[in-house]
């Protein structure tokens, strides 16, 4: 859809994913006219979803067209979800380059389409607590968020009630309960883990809290447990913005969606106020402008920061929001210790189990979350997730026989594998940063990002504790054929929880946006995605991104009515 020339909207939202959807919904439902610019194309379920496709229906049996993936998606292919079924939800790396020092590898996994990465996200939805929001006050490192849990709680409620999150009530102070739909069941491996780990170590084992519906919810049917969420969902039984928040915005009649619109920079008036954005048509490469009284950047942490950095003018020579040199700094991404697991011998079976739960189990953070479980070798903490399941056919490779007898063994001697990994908090460090690489442009002539980030001593010390705990769990679970956890930390960016680079704070000298996500330096520009995180904790950020976005959308609407914008 093309915009009418000089059409002035109340709010312009850049990005249609988890954050943009909530800002648009909240603002439009309060009567503001909202235009949303999305860099990618619309996805059509009947054309682009591959839910319920079997491997034998695909040209490469689900293993992917490796030649094409290596040529056009050499970065994206490293993401577990970028496979033959779902590669269409990830960008072409040739068109979307970025750079990094060769000794500091960074994975930037990106989805550009209406809905952004919400087609492919892992749907894990955990509230942060003041353990995260006020971490600096507890251990003295870095900065607190300018908001506390009680301020965000009603927005967590609002988001969970609207999108539907299944989960169990655990009454843990460090992991607040929410407005949950009934929890998913645990697998037998999960049940065993709960029995063993809770009894031996006293660590809580619970089903993942996921944005999948376990009962019908607001016109959407319950999950039918095909476990193919990242291929799209015809029944809209997990949260993605194109089937949940964006239709709500559209229902108001105040919402305009423009796809294939790649925003390059903000349009700045001589007064220093933003009057809209400059964007490029993805298909025709024509340059266009869109105008609004308020601009909200919700394009994903790094893309929003890239737009701010690229918005250089006489008023903002270093980019909008960068008067103190903070913009681009304090990049974070969770790190993981992966690869650990083994077989549970007494769950080996000749009977095939039903499979399809879209979640596993979680062991919430316990270390450094209260005074009685302190580990002073590092700051902050980690959580585990894992699951157990029957092997499908990977055991066939290990059975040396041939012919009918071999296939009978494959069919009737099904191993049961248990896997567990740890995910830890990355400290916000000023030298983990992104800058513009003026020497390299993307396919639309926009300067690309240079990402310079690495994990430090705190993360490495935490990783040692993670490995020790995993080893103890594997030992106590009495697994066979044990694979120990990897020695290396995951690559920066690999967990696709990139946060920071336009962080939130009270002090304009130390932060980019205020508690309402408004950029300190400019009156009418907001950033609402993961860029604003001051700390990241060890839990997935998307639920908090949505809560912050809902709060910002509401604030914008109220400020608009008051004439402040």
């Amino acid at each position, binding site marked *: 859809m093309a915009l009418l020339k000089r059409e002035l909207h109340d709010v312009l939202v850049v990005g249609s994913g988890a954050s943009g959807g909530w800002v648009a919904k909240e603002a439009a439902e309060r009567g503001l006219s909202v235009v949303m610019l999305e860099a990618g194309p619309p996805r059509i379920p009947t*054309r682009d979803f591959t839910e*319920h496709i079997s491997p034998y229906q695909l040209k490469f049996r689900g293993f992917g067209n490796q030649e094409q993936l290596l040529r056009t998606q050499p970065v994206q292919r490293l993401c577990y979800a970028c496979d033959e079924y779902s590669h269409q939800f990830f960008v072409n790396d040739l068109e979307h380059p970025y750079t990094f020092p060769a000794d500091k590898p960074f994975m930037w996994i990106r989805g550009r389409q209406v809905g952004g990465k919400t087609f492919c996200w892992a749907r894990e939805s955990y509230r942060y607590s003041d353990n995260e929001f006020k971490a600096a006050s507890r251990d003295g490192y870095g900065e607190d968020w300018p908001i506390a849990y009680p301020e965000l709680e009603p927005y967590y409620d609002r988001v969970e009630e609207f999108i539907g999150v299944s989960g169990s009530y655990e009454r843990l102070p460090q992991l607040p309960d929410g407005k949950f739909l009934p929890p998913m069941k645990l697998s037998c491996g999960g049940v065993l883990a709960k029995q063993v780990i809770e009894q031996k170590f006293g660590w809580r084992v619970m089903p993942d809290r996921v944005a999948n519906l376990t009962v019908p919810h607001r016109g959407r049917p319950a999950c039918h447990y095909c476990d193919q969420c990242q291929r799209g969902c015809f029944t809209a039984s997990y949260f993605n913005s194109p089937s949940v928040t964006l239709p709500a915005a559209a229902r108001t009649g105040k919402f305009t969606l423009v796809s294939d619109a790649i925003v390059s920079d903000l349009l700045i008036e001589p007064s220093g106020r933003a009057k809209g954005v400059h964007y490029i048509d993805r298909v025709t490469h024509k340059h266009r402008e869109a105008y609004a009284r308020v601009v909200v950047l919700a394009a994903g942490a790094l893309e929003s920061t890239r737009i701010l950095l690229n918005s250089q003018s006489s008023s903002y020579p270093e980019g909008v929001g960068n008067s103190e040199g903070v913009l681009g700094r304090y990049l974070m991404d969770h790190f993981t210790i992966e690869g650990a697991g083994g077989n549970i011998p007494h769950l080996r079976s000749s009977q095939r189990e039903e499979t399809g739960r879209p979640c596993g189990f979680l062991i919430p953070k316990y270390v450094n979350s209260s005074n009685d479980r302190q580990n002073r070798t590092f700051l902050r903490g980690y959580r585990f997730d894992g699951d157990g399941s029957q092997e499908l056919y990977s055991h066939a490779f290990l059975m040396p026989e041939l012919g009918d007898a071999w296939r009978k063994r494959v069919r009737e001697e099904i191993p049961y594998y248990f896997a567990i990994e740890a995910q830890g908090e990355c400290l916000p460090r000023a030298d983990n940063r992104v800058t513009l690489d003026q020497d390299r442009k993307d396919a639309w002539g926009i300067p690309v990002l240079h990402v310079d980030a690495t994990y430090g001593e705190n993360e490495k010390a935490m990783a040692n504790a993670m490995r020790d705990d995993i080893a103890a769990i594997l030992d106590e679970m009495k697994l066979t054929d044990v694979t120990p956890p990897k020695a290396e930390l995951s690559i920066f960016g690999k967990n696709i929880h990139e946060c920071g680079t336009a962080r939130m704070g009270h002090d304009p000298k130390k932060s980019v946006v205020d508690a309402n996500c408004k950029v300190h330096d400019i009156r009418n520009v907001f950033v609402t995605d993961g860029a604003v995180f001051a700390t990241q904790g060890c839990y997935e950020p998307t639920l908090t991104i949505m809560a912050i976005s809902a709060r910002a959308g509401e604030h914008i609407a109220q400020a608009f009515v008051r004439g402040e914008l």
Partner: protein
Amino acid sequence: MNQLPPPELADQITRRQWLLRLGETVALAGVSGVVPTAVAEHLAAAKKARGPIVLPPGLYLPSADHLAHALGARETYVSKPGSETEYVQLIHGPYQPQFFPQQDFQIVTRLVELILGQVDTTALSQTTQWVDFWLYSAAGVLEEAKQLDPLHRSLAVAYYGEAVIKELETSNPQLVARQCIPALNELSRARYGAGFLELGEPSQLELVEFMSAAQAQDPLRKFFELIRKETILGYYTSAEGLKELSYKGNSYHGQCPGCSINEGTVGNV
């Protein structure tokens, strides 16, 4: 823009109704001539409940017809034009190998048969086609791997390790296959005085055993492992292979699959 009905109206489609509708659709999906009617009825019912809806392209509401279409597809799936997914096309007539010469393809087919034992002829054919197609595709993979941008290569090394990437850049399965089929025939003639295909099953199995027990770096061992690996992947991703495994995923489940063993006794089984 048309207004959507309030969410509570859509909520009137209960879980039970959904299950009944979807269950019926799934049951009917494979019956020729019934599906369009059934799907049309579902669509009409869903639309009636929702009222008129106009959404911008890219936004969507829950749909049973899409689900039924995908669940009802059999060997091949027909997608809409413009899809970025490459689906298997129905083959009319005998398969023409893309990599192997016809004679060599017969040898590979026999090796696959020896590995799998007695299987459905369609599944055997799909497996041998996969082995041929995988080898056909391998040249392009090797070329792309060798041309990886240095920055992307460094990322791949950080992710997989140097040894894996080196293997990707240097392994040439096409060369292995081209060299080893004649080598297998030569070995067969030297041992039994006839080519591999002319041998009886016991002799063929002896040769297979010889290949699998050879030194790790022996080309014949590498060739056999290559064929065995792709046979496993090809067979257990075929419809028949998945059926043989009693695979119960990729399905419509009415309720959350979970542990069927009594929770109190999981640890004591």
